[in-house]
């Protein structure tokens, strides 16, 4: 589906722009300018307002990024449990730094705030799916699921 068809599915729905943005992310992994402008038109906002919504929530991205979004929690409990070692392992495994995407467009690496799984730190999520009790040793196998 192209972005216009995706957005049209939520036309007339209260707060539909948020759902449309999520649907766009599933397809493109980020929100292209044209899609934000189209969402503005459908939901009767200015492009400036639609852009404000797109940049307000950290799970949305207006920059092109890798298809599979790997996020690691940087809140205190994960930090104490050794998140920085996991960060290093992720960077090594993917060959990119935090905030970057792989050249083949498959992976993006981002920080996130607490995802509410503090019983099993450190935590990473891939496309929203949490992986608990992560350690550097487990990273290659987890990433391999998405290669």
């Amino acid at each position, binding site marked *: 589906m192209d972005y216009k068809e995706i957005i049209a599915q939520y036309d007339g729905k209260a707060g539909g722009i948020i759902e449309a943005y999520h649907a766009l992310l599933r397809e493109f992994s980020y929100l292209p300018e044209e899609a934000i*402008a189209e969402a503005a038109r459908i939901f009767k906002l*200015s*492009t*400036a*307002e639609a*852009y*404000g919504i797109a*940049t*307000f929530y950290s799970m949305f991205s*207006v920059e092109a990024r890798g298809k599979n979004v790997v996020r690691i929690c940087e809140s205190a409990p994960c930090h104490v449990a050794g998140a920085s070692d996991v960060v290093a392992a992720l960077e090594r495994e993917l060959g990119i730094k935090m905030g970057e995407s792989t050249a083949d467009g498959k992976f993006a690496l981002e920080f996130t705030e607490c995802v509410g799984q503090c019983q099993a730190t450190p935590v990473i999520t891939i496309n929203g799916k949490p992986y608990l009790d992560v350690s550097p040793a487990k990273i290659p196998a987890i990433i391999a699921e998405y290669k």
Partner: protein
Amino acid sequence: MVNLTIDGIKVSVPEGSTILQAASEVGIKIPTLCFHPDQSIKANCRVCVCEVEGNRLLQAACAMPVFEGMVVKTRTPKVLEARKTILELILSNHPQDCLNCIRNGNCELQDLAQEYCIRENPFEYKVRGFEKDFSTPSLFRDQDKCILCRRCVEVCSVVQSVNALGLEGRGYDSMVVPTLGKALIDSPCIMCGQCIHACPVGAIGEIEQIDEFLAAVANPDKVVITQIAPAVRVAIAEEVGMMTGEMPMGTFVQGLRQIGFDHVLHTNFTADLTILEEGNELLKRLKEGGTLPMFTSCSPGWINFCETFYPDLLDNLSTCKSPQQMFGALVKTYWAEKMGIDPANIYSVSIMPCVAKKFEAARPEMNDSGYQDVDLVLTTREIGRLFRMSGLDFSRLPASDFDSWMGKYTGAAVIFGASGGVMEAALRTVYEVVTGKTLEDVNFVATRGITGIKEADVDLDGTVVKVAIANGLANARKLMEQVRAGESPYHFIEIMACPGGCIGGGGQPITKANVKRVERIEAIYAEDAGLPLRKSHDNPEVKTLYEEFLHEPLGHKSHELLHTHYHPKNKKFL
């Protein structure tokens, strides 16, 4: 009425009033930054906090409604400490280069830093380090100075319905940005400059061109001439410490000679000329079934708006250039010839209440004289700075008069500066042209004032012409939607982009509230009422211009020099 006590003083105010309003009733000024008297309550800066008995936390006076028996304390040690901390936090990432700032001496944050004796800031000083945006010929943005009050966002969206500015990000990372975080020139910005008035600090300003002017004055080969727009005189007084409208025209002209102009002429001359061209254009459209309603075309912010948002309605726009551009085209042809001056040596400067005029003068099509018709546009504020730089005392300066040819004007031209003025001026002339009778009472009061949309029916000897006037582009948009839907009952529509008209233009002295616009409007009509000639077609110099040069309104020469075409802006994102 609600009774409360503020700092031990009893006060009664209408229900729904805020603490801020109640306090001002009894002479207590509470500091504000995000508060704007003509805008919605934002309560995001928190500098107006007060103690309210029974509340554990401090309350924002701009947002907190009063209640019966309320006890407010506005200057306890706790309150003063909190306000000071808020200011210190704002200043911790606000560039401390006040001396170089365009708003030095006229900045709400600077004033508060002064009032609250901010000396050493305990917080780490770290400027965010954004690139300044100089992408438009009219306005710049300096995001580092932005205090995130959002007053510019509201004026751009609610008052102007342009929506060129919005927010990006959240919390500490939030910023005010043009559409999609792009440069201002790539946003739908129509360069009206109302955001400059809304900004409490120096985060938005006009592109200042004082140095270009001084360089032209210093060049012995250049004949530097100026035209003054109708709205400038009433406001320039405010720039030099006088009351609105207080500076006499003669003193103003003398001031302009003192800062280096070789010839002082008046845009009012071409305002009168505009009426003859535009009035005849309206009559022609009415007679020959041309596109109606016809829209006025004097306001360059409005032209940008129409080209951006209503490209399908460009045929409704009068083809008349604005008075500034008519003047520019004539001064390097007619005037140059009459004066025996080589137009190549003329440096034509216009003094405008407007920042969009800077853009208009730079339009590539505005060169019908064979040169760039207007070389430089200076705003009322820039002229104010030049006056202050020159050490002129306007209470003692002897008066001077305009140079001849293109310096004479009527009251009809003066009122071009206020919303409804172009319409009224046109009606004064159209009435006499159509009916052949003398118009005894020239005052069309229904067209006057700051009301967003005004309308009137004008009886021209049995033919009723329906007219409408809008100021502020959100109001204009309402009329445009009617036209687009084919439901507009009007024949003639005047639009001025800025609230109140040109007197509230983006280049005027910083205008903190609409009441100031109303004062300027009153000064405009007072000037009109005091003039001997009040109909554009009575202007003797305009008559001579037609006899000697143009021959007839809408004639061949007029089309060549005084009329133009419009182009859809085709902005990618609106």
